[in-house]
């Protein structure tokens, strides 16, 4: 599957420095349509920075990222239009606390896609049903559990019909008993063919759902492979050390 899809992201020599701290060091890779790319690596290695570069929450210091053949690091790209195609799910959910769940889902489609309210709400309710939270549409985020919040955050992104979904440690802020419900939603999404890039520490999920795994360490992709090979035959010594620590 991962070899068949068309190339969505073409990343060349991506570098990102914060001051003198070089966090991403000449990263090059591509991401194809339908892939579920899982990014693992030690803390502070640049995983989040890499992911956030993909939707330009971090502006690369040098190098290029093109999406569907268009160079998005170019100054003339309409960043807002581009971001509509890229969904993002955060570790801390970042739901809008002043809006109801339904409004969280409809805000962007109504304001950005100019969808009529009725249509946006109908679609939002379908999405809520998909994650089993249709009865929460009138609730506010603060009334939900962590797992419920994250499921809402996922469908809030989906309401924009993105072509790619980015996840930055979506289950790291959850109580253990809630991790499963979120991973299930993500698994369903992957089965539906969504292109996903996921930073996570959930190795079971990575192995089961991922189509390719990247090991980022010290701002460099030190190893990338299909899940089975990645976990069974790691070649990079740093990866071996990393895997031995977490499994």
């Amino acid at each position, binding site marked *: 599957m991962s070899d068949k899809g068309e190339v969505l992201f073409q990343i060349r020599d991506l570098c990102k420095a914060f001051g003198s701290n070089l966090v991403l060091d000449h990263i090059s890779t591509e991401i194809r349509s339908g892939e579920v790319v899982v990014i693992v690596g030690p803390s502070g290695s640049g995983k989040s920075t890499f992911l956030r570069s993909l939707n330009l929450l971090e502006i690369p210091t040098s190098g290029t990222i093109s999406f569907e053949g268009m160079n998005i690091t170019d100054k003339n790209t309409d960043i*807002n239009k581009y*971001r509509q195609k890229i969904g993002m799910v*955060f570790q801390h959910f970042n739901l*809008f606390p*002043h809006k109801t769940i339904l409004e969280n889902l409809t805000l962007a489609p109504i304001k950005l896609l100019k969808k009529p309210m009725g249509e946006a709400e109908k679609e939002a309710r379908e999405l809520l049903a998909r994650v089993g939270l249709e009865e929460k549409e009138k609730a*506010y985020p603060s009334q939900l559990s962590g797992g419920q919040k994250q499921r809402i955050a996922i469908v809030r*992104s989906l309401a924009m019909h993105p072509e790619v979904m980015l996840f930055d440690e979506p289950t790291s802020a959850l109580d253990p008993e809630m991790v499963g419900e979120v991973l299930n939603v993500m698994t369903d999404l992957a089965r539906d063919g969504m292109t996903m890039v996921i930073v996570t520490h959930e190795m079971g999920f990575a192995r089961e759902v991922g189509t390719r795994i990247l090991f980022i360490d010290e701002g460099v992709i030190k190893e990338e492979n299909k899940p089975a090979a990645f976990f069974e035959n790691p070649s990079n010594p740093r990866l071996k050390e990393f895997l031995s620590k977490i499994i």
Partner: protein
Amino acid sequence: MRAVPCLHEYLAKAAGSRAPPQLAKGFAYNLTRHAGLLDGSPAGQREGCEGVEEFKLKFYTNFIKDDRYMYLVKGLGNTLAITFLAVLLGIVLGFLVAIIRSTHDKTGKGKIANMICQVYLTVIRGTPMMVQLMIMCYVVFGNYNISKLIVATLAFGINSGAYVAEIVRSGIMSIDQGQLEAGRSLGFGYAQTMWYIIMPQAFKNVLPALANEFIVLLKETSVCGYIGMMDLTRGGDIIRSRTYEPFMPLIGVALIYLVMVMVLSGLVGKLERRLRTSER
């Protein structure tokens, strides 16, 4: 007793135009006391009666006679008008400055605009309100024949804007960075994210502080008299200068402020409780 107010009034008026205030005041006061003693009521009753009667008399002289309460009514009207208009101006200015400043803090954009804002904040918060008011009246508009109401509104609005700005800015900065990122990653521009996502939350957070700022403003307008504007305080003071009787008009004025502030504070408290219960 009916003749007494007339006499009192007459003497006060006569004395007011010529004699120094101190003398006139003492003179009128003595006369009133004297008038009370001349009253032919029995000695036992007289003490209590005298108190009530004297109060009635004073109330009559200070507020009813010659429609003097109209000074307070007109003054209150001006106080409320200045406060209301200055609040509007303060909100507009304050939000503008807050947005410029927090945008600069977050993105580093708008260096010059931010510097202008900083000068504004420093000057306004570093000088007394009364001095600002007089500068506005005698320096800025010194050579123009312009309504005092406008002068006062500008002075108080510009002053209040500086405090509103810092309140709103703290509100904006208190919103988690993740909210901005969530908005931006959905495809909202910076301004749209501010408008739909950040500002409503920031506004809700600072609403009680804002309301308090306006209660302060209401009281601060009492220095309006210094530019010859008849606000509530000045209205009371005019009555005092007519009747040579400070107690009634000034306590009356104080009570009116107190009631307004208490009502407003009560509303703010209610608002705070409602904001806390909604969405939680």
